[in-house]
């Protein structure tokens, strides 16, 4: 009985002493929470997409708190966030307010338009397949159709379409640009959401070269160039290029394009609202 009491009592006293010690240390040497980091963190979107280049929103908050990043460090938050961050950082937001950026997949060579030359068997990732005979795709510039972009998309805005190409649900897109970075053929460009007329082909090949592998590519026929009332369409070799600064989104080029390489994009109504556009132009695709 006595032994039991000694043991129990001893442990009790020991626990008391150690607990007191812990409390003492905690009071004397508290870990100061970086309140600044938390305040930055509260502003950030919290999707942890990594688009800023850091490991996530917590990491970016820490970078911001150290003053090592500017108000536009987060590509997802847009102008609204940039303004808030600028206030917090005590500086004026640099640059002008621009339309949010959305990904444009500059290839329309789906399974039907550009049938594969071979059957690809290997790692199911575009970045691995690109060095393996282009994953059997016919066009060396076009989409590999293995879905690396939509698998990398942190919000699910980019999804696989029926023809193997990525499809954008613009309302869900935060404009983080991860899809653009993972694409091994650099087919995805981050594009201002209000510039909805785009060339969806990156092949510099001649008309015959494009037609041999794809029915939806830009053949360099120049019809868009000729029809454009404001001279916004130019040619880079055999590839049409639209000067966004001049384009008035009339859509004349979209009408004349024989292969459908020039399209009207971001057709989703929600996105138009986001971009502050009127809903005059119906149709188009995302």
């Amino acid at each position: 009985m006595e032994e039991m009491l000694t043991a129990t009592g001893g442990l009790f006293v020991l626990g008391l002493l150690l607990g007191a010690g812990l409390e003492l240390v905690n009071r004397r040497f508290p870990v100061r929470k970086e309140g600044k980091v938390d305040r930055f963190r509260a502003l950030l979107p919290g999707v942890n997409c990594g688009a800023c280049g850091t490991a996530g929103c917590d990491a970016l908050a820490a970078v911001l708190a150290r003053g090592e990043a500017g108000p536009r460090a987060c590509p997802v938050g847009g102008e609204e966030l940039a303004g808030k961050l600028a206030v917090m950082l005590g500086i004026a937001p640099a640059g002008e307010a621009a339309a949010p950026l959305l990904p444009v997949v500059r290839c329309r060579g789906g399974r039907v338009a550009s049938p594969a030359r071979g059957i690809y068997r290997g790692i199911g990732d575009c970045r691995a397949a690109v060095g393996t005979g282009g994953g059997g795709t016919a066009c060396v510039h076009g989409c590999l159709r293995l879905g690396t972009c939509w698998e990398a998309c942190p919000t699910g805005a980019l999804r696989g379409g029926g023809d193997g190409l990525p499809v954008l649900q613009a309302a869900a897109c935060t404009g983080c640009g991860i899809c653009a970075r993972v694409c091994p053929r650099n087919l995805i460009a981050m594009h201002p959401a209000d510039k909805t007329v785009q060339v969806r082909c990156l092949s510099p090949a001649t008309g015959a070269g494009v037609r041999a592998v794809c029915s939806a590519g830009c053949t360099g026929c120049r019809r868009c160039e000729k029809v454009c009332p404001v001279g916004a369409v130019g040619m880079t070799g055999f590839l049409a290029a639209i000067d966004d600064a001049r384009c008035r989104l009339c859509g004349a080029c979209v009408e004349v394009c024989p292969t459908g390489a020039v399209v009207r994009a971001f057709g989703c109504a929600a996105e138009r609202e986001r971009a502050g556009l009127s809903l005059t132009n119906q149709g188009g695709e995302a």
Partner: protein
Amino acid sequence: MRFRGGVAFPRELKPFADRPITGLPEPAEVLVPLYGGPGKPCRRLVERGERVEEGAVIGEGDAELAAVHATVTGTVTRLETCRLPAGDEWPAVRIRRGESAAHGQEGTSRAPAATLPDLACQMGILGLGGAAFPLHRKLRLPAGAQVDDVILNGAECEPCLSGDYRLLLERTAEILAGGLRILAHFRAKRLWVGIEQDRERAIAAVRRATGGGRRARVFALPARYPQGAEKQLVRTVLGREIPRGVYPWQTGVSVHNVGTALAVSRAMAGQPLLARVVTVAGEAVREPGNYLVKIGASLAWVLEQVGLKERPEKLLVGGPMMGFAQADANVPVTKGTTGILALTAGEWPQPTPCVRCSACVEACPAGLLPLYLEGYTLKGLFAQAAAHHPGDCIECGACSYVCPAHRPLVQSIRWAKRESGRRSPVA
């Protein structure tokens, strides 16, 4: 020096060695890529509809690129882009064979260049071991550099291929002459001919031809893959390694394929490089063997000539370890085409989890840890993968060959290489 890592193949993977080199007939049409070396295409010198003589220069580049020749006499029918075996698109010239424009007209060929690099450039000689690097660029050294050892690579980089072996048997004297010409160009001290131990006849043939001479000697190499890789060959023959990030010539050695030496010998006689020996094999091929094929002949035409037993499931250009699988046969034979393999099995073994058996580590001749490179890459941890030196991988495929879990090691290391070249900076 003992061979490090690598794999030994069963003997039955080295067949067709007894078949002499056979010439294929002139193809009715060739598609000659304007390829004179890596980087950019050669400048085209002919127009559509133009008549060209066999051996006429149709493409030229600056000092970096070797010339490209018409490999048949005929008419340029189309200027197009073709797919090279490695998958790149490249401008090419299609020539339909026809009658010679005028008999006895010999004004088209220019006088052979005086120096060996100029000659190699003029005669369109690229390394024939598979990499197709312009010979003249390997021959031109900066002032003060000295090459002491020239190694002729007769090690047949891959199983199933036997072109180099047949050349050593059938064109022994010419190969040695070419090798001695390279030796003379460098004012080097020693000429080695590296031949794998199990190619006894070739060793004997070259020994006979050198007659025990002191300037050229045969080195019997261990029959272990990848013995034909440049770095591995240097290590075995000279007992030293080429330090990382250093060109072989900086350590005083220059390695050339035996086919390249033969091409040098021919070039000295005024003949440009128009054809090469290609091993055509695989289960789907009726008459496997070694064939002399004109550059620019399409794979489809070559397979038609040698006959197919059945439709191949997979068509390789190169050997089974490093060769490129072709989506279709509309690809021309190039100066780097060592073999054409038509296989009837097209499956890709399904990977199972890595059990860390270390077979890949043991097999790697570069001293890498392929399992880590693969694991990090497939998880998207490219920075960690880059810390495991993907750039040192020679892509010999020994790791994937031995892997019991069928992990896609080589493909992921290739991916890791790409990614380490395009790291995005922190915003």
